């Protein structure tokens, strides 16, 4: 498996190194890589002194592990990721993979190291935005709800910025609109810049309704929480394993486990488990091959009526009605 050790930043001194490790070279704003390795577009655009965008629209022809080892800590990376196929994973030391569970947006402090594996045959479409912490702080301090918190958020002794999220419909629309533009010439820069401002603005709206939990996080914590999520998904047909067992598996205290889980994903372990359970159950329901009672039993609900009630809470309609709407 190909291994690429690289770094990112608002300044562009990382570009040539990344190009070389991928077996390519830099031409203007573009990293050119021989088509037989990974055909596609890799485009870097410095937008202003505190903002750089990196657009990756690539087909991978072989497995690659990207090891992000930033030497700068003055920025935050915001990754809008519309990858199709079996793709990005975070690995721990023994290379066990943990999935993404529908997250297509990640926000990472530059201090956060991470290993990401991309599988062959997958198509990655990602916009990575590198923004100086000073600039992000400025943006966030404009949100009235956060004026009290902003100093703590950006104090590395108190907090690490790390978050997995889902992008909004508007963000998805922007990314697809950009994809329609030919990645050549100065007009592309106009659309890239417009997309990046739009994505940041849109994420700020998303932030307003979120609870921010101030806590320091190290890379091992991220891996442990992701692994814990993978464990929950593997056991999605069983009953909720309980916080005690989960936290000891994740090698954390119960308090820390619950806090970090919520900080990174925005939901409690229990809510994460239930919403995924319902989502898997919905998929089974959609096949039309099982009765509601069978599904309730298979996914370990207390009974059909419990399943119906939870389903209705999550999707607004009871499962039977949902089926007829399909």
């Amino acid at each position, binding site marked *: 498996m190909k291994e690429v050790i690289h770094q990112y930043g608002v300044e562009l001194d990382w570009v040539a190194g990344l190009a070389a490790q991928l077996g390519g070279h830099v031409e203007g704003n573009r990293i050119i890589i021989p088509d037989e390795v990974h055909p596609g577009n890799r485009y870097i655009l410095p937008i202003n002194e505190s903002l750089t965008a990196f657009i990756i629209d690539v087909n991978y022809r072989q497995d690659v592990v990207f090891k992000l080892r930033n030497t700068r800590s003055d920025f935050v990376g915001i990754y809008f990721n519309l990858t199709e196929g079996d793709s990005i994973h975070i690995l721990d030391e023994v290379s066990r993979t943990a999935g993404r569970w529908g997250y297509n947006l990640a926000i990472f402090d530059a201090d956060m190291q991470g290993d990401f594996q991309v599988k062959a045959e997958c198509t990655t479409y990602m916009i990575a935005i590198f923004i100086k912490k000073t600039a992000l702080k400025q943006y966030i301090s404009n949100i009235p709800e956060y004026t009290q918190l902003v100093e703590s958020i950006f104090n590395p002794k108190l907090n690490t910025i790390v978050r997995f999220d889902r992008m909004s419909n508007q963000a998805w629309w922007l990314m697809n609109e950009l994809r329609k533009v030919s990645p*050549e*010439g100065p*007009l592309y820069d*106009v659309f890239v810049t*417009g997309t990046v*401002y739009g994505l940041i*603005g849109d994420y700020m709206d998303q932030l307003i309704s979120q609870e921010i939990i101030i806590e320091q996080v190290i890379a091992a914590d991220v891996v442990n929480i992701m692994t814990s999520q993978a464990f929950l998904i593997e056991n999605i047909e069983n009953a909720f394993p309980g916080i005690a067992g989960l936290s000891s598996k994740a090698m954390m205290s119960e308090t820390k486990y619950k806090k970090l889980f919520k900080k990174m994903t925005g939901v409690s372990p229990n809510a994460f488990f239930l919403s995924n359970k319902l989502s898997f159950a919905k998929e089974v329901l959609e096949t039309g091959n099982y009765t509601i009672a069978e599904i309730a039993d298979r996914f370990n609900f207390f009974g059909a009526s419990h399943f119906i009630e939870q389903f209705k809470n999550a999707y607004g309609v009871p499962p039977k009605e949902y089926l007829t709407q399909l």
Partner: protein
Amino acid sequence: MTTERAEFFYHYTLGPEWQQQIVEQLGANLADNKILILPEEIASGGSIFLEVLPGLSVLLLDMTFHVPVAMTRIPTDHNYYMVYFDIGDEITTHIVEESIHKAGYHSKLGMSFMDANSKGTIMPPVGERSYSLRLFIEKSYLKELGASTRDLSINNQLFDETKNTLFFYSHIDSRSKVLLNNLKEQHFTNPSFELKLKSAALYLLGYLVDRVSRFEPIINKLSQQDIDNVLKTSQYLLDHLLDEFPGLQKMADLAGMSVSKYKILFKKMLKESPNNFFLNEKLLLAQKLLQNGDFNSVQEIAYELGYSSPNYFAKVYKKMFGLLPAEVLIKAGLSG
């Protein structure tokens, strides 16, 4: 006297400095060098001006004027083009004197592109919300963007000011309309608003360059008088959409130029021949009338619009919108 229209003169700049004229002449309050608030007795609401990137600035204006004013943009030799988007209904209709057969309507085009050295006067309606967006694009920057979309020698001719004047007046294209309507839902005070305004400005610029690259290049100088005269005739057509097309000779006479010159200049500025322009606008009004629920049959609307044959009307309507008018019609009885 309050009925007298207060006149004032100003010009824009690519940087924020133009706003000082509004402060000095109208007593506006300028905050952060980007937000202008007029005195409440003149207008409520405000405007926001941002430099998006070197060569591109945006002004969003959301105001309700309380007194009649005439704001005249005086020609300057500043090195930029202005694109104006009027974000509101392009066709407004209302019932006149309770009679469904007298639909009053007002038709206008929401988008214009002009050189900083052309003149324009705006008389905003009193007591009605004015919502508009302007892009200011440095000439050399637009030329560079244009060069990436078309043949270089044509691009050079288009941007050669001794040979050509860039100008057009049109409807807002549908992609831009979606963006502008999204923006209109956002509040000025929203913390993400400036980022979204910048994003919209850049997309509007991108859509503009893409759209004009498909225009047939007509290389011609336009004097201020040419512009005024041709726009007088397009407005005449918009004001007489219920009539028949008056004929080229009459339109050219109205513009005070020869038919051949008139045809070229009209096409250069409005991007269509006078006849096609008139027919398309008529059909856009037809669409509005069909959806408004003020009529009971396609026939009534066809006659209202001056078509002698409802079948012919149905045919041309379908050609433009892909549906028969009967499929679109909302009958009078059903709307209330």
